[in-house]
């Protein structure tokens, strides 16, 4: 990669994370079993933390240690982890369960946001959706993500709120998925081909046409994003069934189909192994030339034949 290309990739890299965080509101990260989305969520969390924002994490699926793994202490200091992993249903009765459940914690977060821009990462939205009624969750999400548009009670300015929701696609029916999609400003669907991860980003800006673009990326061990060229076109047909395939019959060295004439010629041919009455007669009839056969012998031109001692080559 040359310097200018590197610079260009750098700006594009900023573009992807920026475009995800530019709008505020709810950003849906839809992942699948094969293409996990937690790395991208962590990349976005890192980006927000580096911008100086306070980051709240509602952790329902992985332990705090696992989520914080890979971040340096600077970033970890900016993260507030609300732990719903250890005892979400209060079975262990450790007394550490947060009051009001996950939604109570969410509402508490939005009360605390009068200081500046805040990012709230939901890890994961799927867990919440399986345990809470869809309508309640959507109402809370709406209240949290759009609180900057309504004036707060005490008149102080409220910073922008980003809500990042990790959603496992396979777990939910079309109903809840549709409800959350319509609530989201930005939707990122993860996928990939040939070992290369891709993100399809659908942005809905107010009073504009939604934009839809696909980015190919990989996430480095320090959770920074590395944008890549997509795999070359010839490997892409799996991802898009509408691209016509190359005709495999185009450049063959033999015929796959016969014309009518060729077919007749083929049918009329007698193959060597086919036994017919003519063949039988021809084989049984004695051949006239059999009695007088000849042997023709032509000595090799370079043969060193000694007329006087024909057994010379035997070396007796």
């Amino acid at each position, binding site marked *: 990669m040359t310097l200018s290309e590197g610079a260009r990739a750098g700006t594009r890299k900023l573009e992807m994370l920026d475009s995800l965080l530019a709008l505020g509101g709810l950003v849906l990260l839809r992942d699948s*079993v094969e293409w996990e989305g937690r*790395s991208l969520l962590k990349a976005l969390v890192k980006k927000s933390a580096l911008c100086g924002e306070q980051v709240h994490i509602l952790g329902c699926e992985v332990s705090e*240690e696992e989520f914080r793994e890979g971040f340096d202490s600077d970033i970890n200091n900016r993260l507030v982890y609300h732990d719903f992993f250890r*005892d*979400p249903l209060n*079975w262990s009765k450790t007394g550490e369960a947060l009051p009001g459940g996950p939604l109570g914690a969410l509402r508490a977060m939005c009360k605390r946001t009068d200081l500046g821009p805040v990012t709230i990462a939901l890890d994961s939205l799927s867990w919440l959706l*399986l345990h809470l009624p869809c309508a309640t969750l959507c109402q809370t999400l709406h209240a949290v993500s759009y609180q900057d548009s309504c004036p707060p009670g005490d008149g102080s300015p409220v910073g922008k709120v980003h809500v990042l929701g990790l959603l496992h696609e396979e*777990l939910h029916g079309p109903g809840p998925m549709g409800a959350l999609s319509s609530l989201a400003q930005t939707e990122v669907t993860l996928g990939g081909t040939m070992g290369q*991860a891709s993100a399809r980003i659908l942005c809905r800006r107010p009073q504009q046409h939604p934009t839809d673009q696909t980015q190919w990326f990989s996430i480095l061990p320090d959770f920074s994003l590395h944008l890549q060229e997509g795999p070359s076109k010839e490997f892409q047909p799996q991802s898009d069934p509408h691209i016509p395939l190359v005709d495999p019959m185009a450049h063959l060295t033999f015929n796959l189909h016969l014309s009518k004439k060729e077919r007749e010629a083929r049918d009329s041919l007698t193959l060597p192994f086919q036994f017919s009455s003519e063949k039988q007669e021809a084989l049984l009839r004695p051949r006239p030339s059999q009695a007088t056969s000849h042997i023709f012998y032509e000595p090799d031109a370079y043969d060193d034949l000694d007329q006087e001692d024909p057994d010379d080559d035997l070396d007796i």
Partner: protein
Amino acid sequence: MFPELNNLLNTTPDRAEQGKLTLLCDAKTDGSFLVHHFLSFYLKANCKVCFVALIQSFSHYNIVGQKLGVNLTMARERGQLVFLEGLKSAVDVFFQAQEKPHPLQFLREASAGNLKPLFEFVRVALKPVDSGAAGWTYPVLLVDDLSVLLSLGLGAVAVLDFIHYCRATLCWELKGNVVVLVHDSGDVEDEENDILLNGLSHQSHLILRAEGLATGFCRDVHGQLRILWRRPSQSTSQRDQSLTYQYKIQDRSVSFFAKGMSPAVL
């Protein structure tokens, strides 16, 4: 324990990874050989094992275990193995007065709808003891299999919650492992089972999926095994994360070979 499978997974009883959830899944075939593998693997690794067996009797697992070189009766006697025999104790729920909740209490109280008693049973069984005499390395929970719980009337979310707590307690707190088997109903539309399977897939670190051959039953190739590592994408190149092998189950072992490379075909 099948050494060939250990080679494919790049592990041995001495240096197995800890704190992991392994999902075993079978579609159009019987994946129980994977359960037998992990049962003997962890017993040989000197782990404290809690085995929730809802499918077969103790003697069945014991007979197969003996073929694989482990003695379940002895392991149970010396306290290494805690065996919950679902087939037998399901009857106890109804006919024996219990002072404390039975692990399979949900069979009796339809309204409860959760697996908290079963989790309590697992937690107590695998709670580290201070005596130090036994000296087991780390705790392991094995479940054969979770789909049965759905058939017994539980919801997928209840089963997911149970595994969530097992994960939080075993994998995270005690640095142990959890191995569970789930059937893939495949073409049959079973919404609850799909939620369970996908939910677990998202939580697991390793997925072993045994599939019957698309072409039908075959004497020399019994099925194919897909191995999917769900590490964060950066630690390994994506290409190495998924592998597919075909296998043949023999009397005491399983042989694995690349697709189409069965010794019977070549």
